[in-house]
């Protein structure tokens, strides 16, 4: 599904002394099938932005278009429920939302609310459980007896069981250990490819954005600060530092390397093996070859 924001403003507690503008004249377009990373420091408007995508909030001004659904201040779509069945949101620490007696019931909760019939839900659960890295032995267990990482997988399975077209991920790896982080991101990425999803990843990790996204949007003070392909955006060190963001480590290193050796190795998203070869050529003094 294509997603378009057009001059969106969002004000919390409008017409009160506590009014606060969280989104400020924000416009962007995300074509269907892309993997977009949304980056910005705490308080830059990332979470408010994603709440617009499934109509949890509607713009105070401007319009949000998600596929054929149009959301404005005066015009909420009549079929909001359908919109929500097509936009799957994995909130931060989604394991806090688990509540059912068994893993199976918890995963079934979402699709049941969207009137998917019981047989079909069973089929989906058996398909999704291995995808999120769990086995069917877990289905009859209480989600509260699982480890944090396993609980998160159950919560994610619950979102996937609705079969959304758009997957919105709000810091999905926060608090996991390195192996867990890698596994979860890998899972989202292969699902994105296989099921032709549109994926929106809200993250603090420049490394993940560089690895998975084909487009990044940098937010600052509720508005778009930069936008483009990761390898174009992430080399702009000064601009990123101005909004308290760092460049990915590989780019930091190449930058320091250039200062020391007075020879640039341009970053083009090449592999670490290729970077090592370029460094060797400079160090051994045959950069021209």
């Amino acid at each position, binding site marked *: 599904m294509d997603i378009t924001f057009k001059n969106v403003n969002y004000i919390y507690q409008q017409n009160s002394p506590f009014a606060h503008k969280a989104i400020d004249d924000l416009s962007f377009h995300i074509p269907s099938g892309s993997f977009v990373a949304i980056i910005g*420091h*705490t*308080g830059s408007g990332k979470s408010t932005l994603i709440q617009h995508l499934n109509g949890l909030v509607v713009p105070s001004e401007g319009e949000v278009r998600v596929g054929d659904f149009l959301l404005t201040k005066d015009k909420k779509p009549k079929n909001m429920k359908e919109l929500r069945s097509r936009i799957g949101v994995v909130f931060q620490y989604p394991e806090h939302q688990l509540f059912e007696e068994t893993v199976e019931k918890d995963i079934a909760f979402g699709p049941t609310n969207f009137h998917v019939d019981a047989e079909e839900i069973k089929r989906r659960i058996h398909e999704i459980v291995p995808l999120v890295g769990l086995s069917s032995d877990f289905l009859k267990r209480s989600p509260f007896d699982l*480890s*944090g*990482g396993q609980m998160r997988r159950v919560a994610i399975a619950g979102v996937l069981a609705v079969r959304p077209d758009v997957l919105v991920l709000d810091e999905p790896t*926060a*608090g*996991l*250990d*390195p*192996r*867990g*982080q*890698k596994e979860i991101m890998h899972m989202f990425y292969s699902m994105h490819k296989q099921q032709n999803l549109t994926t929106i990843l809200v993250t*603090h*990790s*420049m490394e993940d954005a560089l690895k998975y996204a084909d487009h990044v949007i940098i937010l600052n003070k509720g508005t778009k600060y930069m936008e483009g392909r990761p390898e174009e955006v992430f080399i702009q060190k000064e601009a990123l530092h101005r909004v*308290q963001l*760092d460049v990915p*480590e*590989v780019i*930091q*290193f190449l930058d*320091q*390397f250039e200062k*020391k*050796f007075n020879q640039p190795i341009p970053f083009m998203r090449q592999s*670490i*093996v290729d*970077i*090592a*070869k370029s*460094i*060797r050529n*400079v*160090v*051994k*003094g045959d950069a021209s070859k």
Partner: protein
Amino acid sequence: MSSKLVEFKDVSFRYGEEQPWVLKNCSFEIFENEWLAIIGHNGSGKSTIAKLMNGLLFPQEGEIIINGKQVNEANIWDIRKDVGMVFQNPDNQFVGTTVQDDVAFGMENRGIPRDEMIRRIDHTLAAVNMQDYRFTEPHRLSGGQKQRVAIASVLAIFPQVLILDEATAMLDPKGRKEIMQTVSNVQTSQKLSLITITHDLQEVVQADRVIVMNAGEIWEEAKPRDIFGKKDALRKIGLDVPFIGILADELKHAGIAISHEPLNHEELLEDLWTLHLKT
């Protein structure tokens, strides 16, 4: 050699009779003024060690001695005067309505006189660089700032051991940097042993010594540089090798003779520069 402050002797722990052991025969020592990092994947037993150290849990086997006292139910209140702890979630450890009330809370519980409390609030907030936020309400602070206040609150009771149990895991990169900076300042300026528990290899670089936990057992105990050298083994137990280590390996494959395992960018660049001058 400075004296022993913490000693684990063959400690084993499990949550119940039928449950598997989460800690198996762990023995190690921590010395005065030392910075020890404990690293391991989720469920490797590292947080259990922290909870055993200040009597939130008690071992079924073995003994734990802190500052000459064996940890048991009779003396946990004494032990907790010596062992301060900062936890993972910045939102779960605020009790005061302002920053200074929060720092005062622990001291109030210990009956410290008012004048002394005021002095310590000044001193510890300055130590974590939060002196400008004395009257700020906690919900107006960022995650990193909250954790710094939590560190100040613990420092105010002058512990001998400060444990940070994944205190950076829920923070953004900026917050993480703030905390690592604060911790390193505190460690150099105050007399205390520091234990940082993490799953991030980047955060062990500055420690004096590292204990790597795997499946409830001590898998390795060494200096950070020696740990960094064991990349394949670290990957096997679910830890991530930092970028600089991966690059150093690829440079070796590409035919560059790296002289020692780099801990940071500067070390690797210096090494490369030396090689460059020789060619």
